[in-house]
């Protein structure tokens, strides 16, 4: 069944005054694929995420989701279309409970009316109960069901990251953007996370775009990789192709590596 790509970027450019954050970025993400977005710090990866999710407006170019333009749309509209993201620096609702964090995400697709809220009609009460249960099951899928009543910022870092992911899942997206989900984790935790992402991908059939610096996670998960540097595309291809690409090696490891190779 030929379907339109979940995500399609063409010529996406973002300038901040004189600074070029992204220039002419183009790639296509077919349904069901996990793609990695890698590059040195400052390469423009998070900017790309921000452009896709509508946090920043593009200076030029277009972004399409399943064939429909989402360029410059309001972030909350884009989320409701089916794109969910996590943040590089966790942005949980710190003072709220773990469960409430997930329920707020579930609210995204909830539709009972304001008037019904004021009067707390029986329909509302039913939906509220259902929301709580659904939230608990999402917490269960990342192993956090026992922490439902805990304050979000009272949890250890690794679990907060998992909550970020659970929250993103609760948005029931068709496209998941993960911004350095393994940041600050040791190799064992990173592998654990990689397994979690793989499991989520398989279970929910989620097209995923992943920014990561932990190369073991990237190579293990990603079918395709897009490499950026200084805001422009450096390379694109499968994990093996990218690992052998000379431009990529130079950007990550520097000229010295090449020279050293020849000794």
């Amino acid at each position, binding site marked *: 069944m030929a379907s339109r790509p979940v995500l399609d970027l063409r010529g996406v450019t973002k300038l901040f005054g004189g600074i070029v954050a992204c220039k002419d970025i183009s790639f296509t993400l077919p349904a069901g694929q996990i793609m990695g977005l890698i590059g040195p710090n400052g390469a423009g990866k998070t900017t790309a995420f921000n452009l896709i*999710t509508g*946090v920043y407006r593009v200076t030029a170019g277009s972004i399409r989701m399943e064939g429909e333009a989402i360029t410059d749309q*309001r*972030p*909350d509209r884009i*989320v*409701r279309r089916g794109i*969910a*993201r996590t*943040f590089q620096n966790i*942005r*949980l*609702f*710190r*003072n*709220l409970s773990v469960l*409430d964090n997930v*329920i*707020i*995400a579930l*609210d*995204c*697709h*909830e539709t*009972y009316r*304001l008037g019904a*809220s*004021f*009067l*707390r009609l029986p329909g*509302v009460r039913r939906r*509220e109960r259902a*929301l709580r249960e659904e939230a608990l099951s999402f917490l269960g899928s990342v192993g956090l069901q026992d922490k439902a009543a805990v304050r979000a910022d009272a949890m250890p870092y690794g679990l907060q990251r998992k909550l970020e992911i659970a*929250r993103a899942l609760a*948005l029931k997206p068709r496209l998941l953007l993960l911004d350095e989900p393994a940041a600050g984790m040791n190799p064992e935790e990173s592998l654990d996370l990689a397994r979690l992402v793989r499991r989520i991908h398989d279970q929910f059939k989620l097209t995923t775009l992943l920014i990561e610096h932990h190369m073991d996670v990237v190579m293990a998960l990603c079918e395709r990789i897009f490499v950026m540097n200084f805001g422009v595309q450096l390379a694109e291809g499968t994990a093996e192709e990218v690992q052998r690409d000379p431009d990529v090696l130079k950007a990550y490891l520097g000229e010295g590596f090449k020279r050293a190779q020849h000794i």
Partner: protein
Amino acid sequence: MLQYVFGVISLGLIYVIATTGLAVFTGFTGLFSLGHAAFFAIGAYTAAILTYFYGWNFYLALLAGAAAGGLVGFLIGYPTLKAKLRTDYFAIATLGFGEAVRVLLENLPITQGARGLPGIRGDTNLPVLLVASAIVIWAAWNLIHSRHGRAAIAIREDFVAAEMMGVDIFMGRLRSLTFSAACAGLAGGLFAHYFCFIQPSMFTAYMSTQMTAAVVAGGMGSISGPVIATLIFIGIPEALRVANIWRLVAYGLLLVLIMAFRPQGLMGYRELSLDLFKGWFRRPGKGGKP
């Protein structure tokens, strides 16, 4: 003596209605409205004019006052919230708005200007107030515990993250503002028919200040907190016969001290404020489970 106590309670309940609305706005979206007395005034004048000049039914006039307040809140909120003003500039804009309403009220012929409107029917009494405040508190509580309330809380907590959770920031804030303005309008209508006389100079920054102070002291993120704080703010100074001026000195100092030592106010940062009461009554060690 009993009459006096009822009087104090009545005044307290009028303010509870207005403050509950403000608690939903400031406490849950984190924006300040320094001109909220203006909505109060609009509700008061609308209801009073309708009963005095046009002989309207008291309850319908109250609804009209609430609707007027809400409508103006919506109209003011639309451009200012669309502009995504920072908290402090939004507050300043509301200040300007309050000023503009005062100027308007002093210069429109139908409001009889600075002289005020005397001779309003005294239809407000304690039972009416008890029912009205119960309804408002109940509605506010329902709102907070619904998806609309959670959206407002999310906005206050982290509006960037809230947007990423699909929350429509603008509508969430506008809804809260409209609700709080309508509550203030309702309170204003009740006020007018309690004192039987209103003039523009009664609706001052003092009133807005007291309401905001009650929300902060009661706890932003709770409904019960501001209700209690309002009753304390009205009740204790009355009991001690403290002059208005010293009350304000105390409010000011209180705000500074609360921010320095207990920013979460009386009830704390809980959106499920009644759970706290349940917690107080729960027996030590989870009751029931072996």
